[in-house]
């Protein structure tokens, strides 16, 4: 495994796929603004009245240190903002790799550009790793930006009311730190598998939308109170993700080898 070869692949592809594609480049710039600033700000602001008129019937686990000093309306607000801002910021590391990896894997197939690459001494794994980096680097960069922006904008609005930083709470922070890299990797491997079956970038990115499913499951189980938003829940979720990523990685390695790849050029 020559790490530098994977870097060469990733540098070339980021230039070719990310920086020279209007669709992807605009996603990379617009998503953090929309999902990281505008939507969290709007939510944080228009839901402020909830504090006075709380939604009833919810039992929310302690999310901050001073939890029992906060009135029910405030508790619900903290839960609500963390969940939605979290969802918005977790969509990006899932969706950005869908589009990049569709272009990187299915696109290479559609444009039939792989043969001379396979004729160089690169190994299958070096190539796969380079292509994974092509998706991961922009996805993680966008996530870091978007999360930072959302933390600033949400707290700027809520700090005057609460007097402490209410977002992100520990379970959401854990999702950000551990969940985002895993979810991006998961997307990449799903896209490797999808691209081995379809021949067009568009098809691949449409089918690739399925990666959003585990996030939607997590979100709705929280909203409907099926499971509590807690460090334990998130730990279980992360463990499931790790298993999924490892399983998908082995499946990807199986379809991503010269003998299989050449059939598509």
């Amino acid at each position, binding site marked *: 495994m020559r790490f530098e070869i994977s870097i*060469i692949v990733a540098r*070339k592809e980021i230039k*070719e796929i990310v920086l020279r594609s209007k669709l992807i480049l605009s996603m990379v710039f617009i998503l953090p603004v929309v999902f990281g600033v505008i939507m969290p700000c709007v939510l944080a602001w228009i839901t402020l009245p909830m504090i006075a008129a709380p939604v009833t019937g919810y039992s929310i686990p302690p999310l901050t240190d001073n939890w029992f000093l906060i009135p029910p309306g405030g508790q619900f607000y903290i839960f609500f903002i963390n969940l939605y801002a979290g969802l918005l910021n977790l969509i990006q590391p899932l969706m950005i790799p869908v589009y990049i990896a569709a272009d990187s894997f299915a696109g290479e197939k559609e*444009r039939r550009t792989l043969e001379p690459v396979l004729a160089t*001494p690169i190994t299958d794994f070096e190539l796969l790793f380079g292509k994974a980096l092509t998706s991961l680097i922009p996805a993680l960069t966008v996530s870091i930006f978007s999360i930072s922006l959302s933390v600033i904008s949400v707290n700027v609005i809520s700090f005057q009311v609460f007097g402490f930083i209410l977002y992100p709470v520990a379970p959401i922070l854990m999702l950000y730190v551990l969940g985002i890299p895993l979810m991006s990797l998961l997307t990449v491997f799903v896209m490797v598998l999808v691209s081995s079956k379809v021949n067009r970038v568009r098809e691949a990115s449409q089918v690739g939308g399925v990666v959003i499913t585990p996030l939607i499951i997590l979100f709705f189980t929280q909203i409907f109170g099926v499971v509590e938003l807690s460090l334990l829940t998130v730990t279980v979720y992360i463990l499931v993700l790790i298993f999924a990523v490892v399983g998908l990685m082995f499946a990807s390695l199986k379809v991503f080898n010269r003998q299989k790849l050449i059939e598509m050029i």
Partner: protein
Amino acid sequence: MYMTPSSRSVVVLEKLTKSFNGKIAVYQNSYEIEEGTIFGLLGPNGAGKTTTIRLLTGVLKPSEGDAEIYGYRLSRNVNVIRSIVGVLPENRALYDRLTAQENLEFYGKLYGLKDSELYERIRNLLAFLDLHDVKDTFVGKFSMGMRQKVALARALIHQPKLLLLDEPTSNLDPVMSSKLKDYIKELSGKLGTTILISSHHLAEIENICSKIAIINNGHVISVGGINELKRKIWGYREFEIKLLEFKPDFKKIIESISGVADIMYSDNKIFYKCVDAEKVNPPLIKALVQADAKILSLKETERTLEDLYMKLIRGE
């Protein structure tokens, strides 16, 4: 192009076989390519040219058999082989959203070239192929001929010992095609690169290759030098001598040379056939000159490769 006696075989195919779904696509029973020569792989569409090239670049894995390239075995040292083989694939496979320069940089780096060396090579290749002025243009905007040249430059970036060109002149206009052939010839002459060219286009092979293999349905029908092949197929070669003036006593001289057959005379021309021109022509010319014949020209009655090809492929 002549092969020197010291030339060694640097590509040896040993029953190199590829089947797809149990059907044999290629069965390249033993032939060899000598160092520094231009070798032609000639056959109609679907004959197995592209598959053969993909086997030799280590992109496809042989189903059976093996090949030795510059002493390395496909079965054991495929990565070394990949580093000494350059390929111009059938679909040129360039990155349209990268410039010519960027395409070449990427491949140079994949082959492990150091920056200074890489940039120097790119400069030289771009100059050699007249691409310098367009080096920062996206390849997607290039004409077919320019794409072909960028793809050729890419195949050469790591100075391969063996260059495999899959139908290099297809889709090119005649001017561009002959220019590309000049580049290829120059390459072979300058660097001594061993070159294999595949083609279904007969004329291409005839005037650029010193040796060819004719394949059909994956099987090699015939291998050899072009003249050798012609002799093998027709069994003899035909010549025509043009004289300033014909004298009757030339007849006796010509008929006295052994190996000359089917002699015909017309005006100032003499036509004859022979099997082994190397043994027949020198003494014949010498005898004629000694008899004070004023020879204007000696030429071989050309049977084009087209004739040969048709005869082999269709059994005509």
